[in-house]
């Protein structure tokens, strides 16, 4: 009798633990992420006017979406720039980061702890500070970049103000910012490779480059794909640096999707239209993530079945 009551009591306490341990996380996610998405989806069918600090909603059906797909210019310039930004920055980071990791793995480096510390700096320093720093460096009149160019007699370049090179400057800053991260991930990946396979492969390959191409890259493929995916998705989040470096300008030359959304919501007070923009962006990126993960997982599955 007492034994079974004890057991019931224990089972009840165990069930309660499961609920109690998961509840905070679930409640937070539902109230602050799922509800806002649904809310945003709803608002995207309304026109919202502000009157004395409180919103007045009027239903306008699909008009916000029609306007976004038919009459919008800035947002689509942002889409184009975001794609150019993501592809070129991430490709450069992957190539640079992987090459440096390979060099360090093959040849060793002096002062590893200090080196890791320095490489961690751009990753942990607030992005807004990175933006501030580069705004000072790339400043037209007394930035470090133009001071250095001046020393070798090259005339001043307006890095952030010239529409032809502003986007390239922003991409450069992002490459500078995130290559160390790719390097650290790649180095950790290279160091965890199976040493026996690497040693055995030395019999079959004749040069370092052959080893890289036929042994190391195939073995590193899962790490490479995951890092690529991770960086690509993060680069679609770009906002802080652009906000500070160029605010999307000059014109629309460095406009990115996130900045368009921010401006529509907070500078132009077009809540309904901004919601429609957010919904379209959210759905496109979700699709991209699902397709991307599918590709990564298929590649990983194909590799493990070949073994």
């Amino acid at each position: 009798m007492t034994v079974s009551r004890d057991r019931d009591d224990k089972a009840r306490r165990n069930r309660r633990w499961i609920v109690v341990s998961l509840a905070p996380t679930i409640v937070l996610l539902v109230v602050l992420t799922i509800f806002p998405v649904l809310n945003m989806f709803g608002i995207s069918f309304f026109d919202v006017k502000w009157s004395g600090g409180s919103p007045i909603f009027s239903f306008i059906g699909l008009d916000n979406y029609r306007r976004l797909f038919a009459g919008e210019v800035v947002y689509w310039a942002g889409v184009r720039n975001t794609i150019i930004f993501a592809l070129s920055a991430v490709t450069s980071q992957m190539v640079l980061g992987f090459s440096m990791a390979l060099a360090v793995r093959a040849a060793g480096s002096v002062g590893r702890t200090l080196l890791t510390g320095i490489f961690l700096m751009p990753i942990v320093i607030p992005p807004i500070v990175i933006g501030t720093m580069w705004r000072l460096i790339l400043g037209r009149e007394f930035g470090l970049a133009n001071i250095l160019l001046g020393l070798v007699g090259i005339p001043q370049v307006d890095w952030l103000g010239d529409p032809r090179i502003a986007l390239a400057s922003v991409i450069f800053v992002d490459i500078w910012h995130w290559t160390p991260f790719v390097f650290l991930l790649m180095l950790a990946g290279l160091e965890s490779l199976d040493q026996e396979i690497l040693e055995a492969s030395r019999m079959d390959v004749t040069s370092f480059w052959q080893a890289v191409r036929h042994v190391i890259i195939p073995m590193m493929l899962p790490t490479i794909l995951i890092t690529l995916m991770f960086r690509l998705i993060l680069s679609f989040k770009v906002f802080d640096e652009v906000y500070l470096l160029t605010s999307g300008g000059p014109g629309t030359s460095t406009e990115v999707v996130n900045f368009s959304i921010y401006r529509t919501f907070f500078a132009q007070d077009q809540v309904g239209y901004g919601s429609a923009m957010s919904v379209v962006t959210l759905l496109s990126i979700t699709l991209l993530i699902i397709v991307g993960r599918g590709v990564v997982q298929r590649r990983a599955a194909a590799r493990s079945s070949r073994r």
Partner: protein
Amino acid sequence: MRAGTASRLLANAAVWGYAFLILGPTLWVLSNAFKYKIDIITGATFAPVTWSNFEALLFSRQAHFLLNLLNSAIVGVVSTAIVIVCATMAAFTLTWLRVPSWVRWPLLGWALLFHMLPTLTFVGSWYLMYASVGLQGTYLAVILTHVVHNLPVALFLMISFVGALPKDLFEAARMDGCTYGQVFWRIAFPLVRGGMIAATALVFIFSWSDFAIALTLSSTSTMTAPVAIATFAQEYDIRYGEMAAGTILSIIPALGLILVGQSFIVRGLLAGAVK
């Protein structure tokens, strides 16, 4: 792969060259904090040292930067504490206990997706939500949003740390009649402390660094340091010296963590990225 002296030299030149590319510009910018405005504008590399920028930033009549730093600290500490507690409990339950699959997979799937979606697509909606319940601009709004923003990454980190614990321990404890709660507090919690420190360091850095959320959800009295630094740059007469001084003050936590807990941060970053 044994390499000759020449390639050793080349490899070191490459990585230390990059390290210099990180350090050089950073130090140049930071050095502006100790220069008079006239020396910054004329581009003098070596100039008389002054603390006037720090004084103006922190102690002048219109200065708010001490308050901004304090706000960042309050938001960072409180939100990180909540995130770590929630994530560690949930990670333990999801890893070792039987959770119905209609709870488990939607939870993990949505957490992963939310983690990857741009924050900016949510801020408008958050703003409206907080405004409609009168919380806009309060600490609570910024803290709650930081919590939910960093919860997924902490959850996945803690799942990887909790999952690395030996399974036998839990089974032995349950044989001995421990309830789930006791297994968590007496066995899992002490063992996973190293992982919790790594996650804490990382989540605090994320919260301290956040710009988008604080920019849109804070008010003048709850404004955090990154937002304050951005406003310096938006003013008509950019105060370069104070901007650099603010930059130095706001990277101190990050640098401190690198010095004290470099291995923890690397561990956290690597574990977080492979998810």
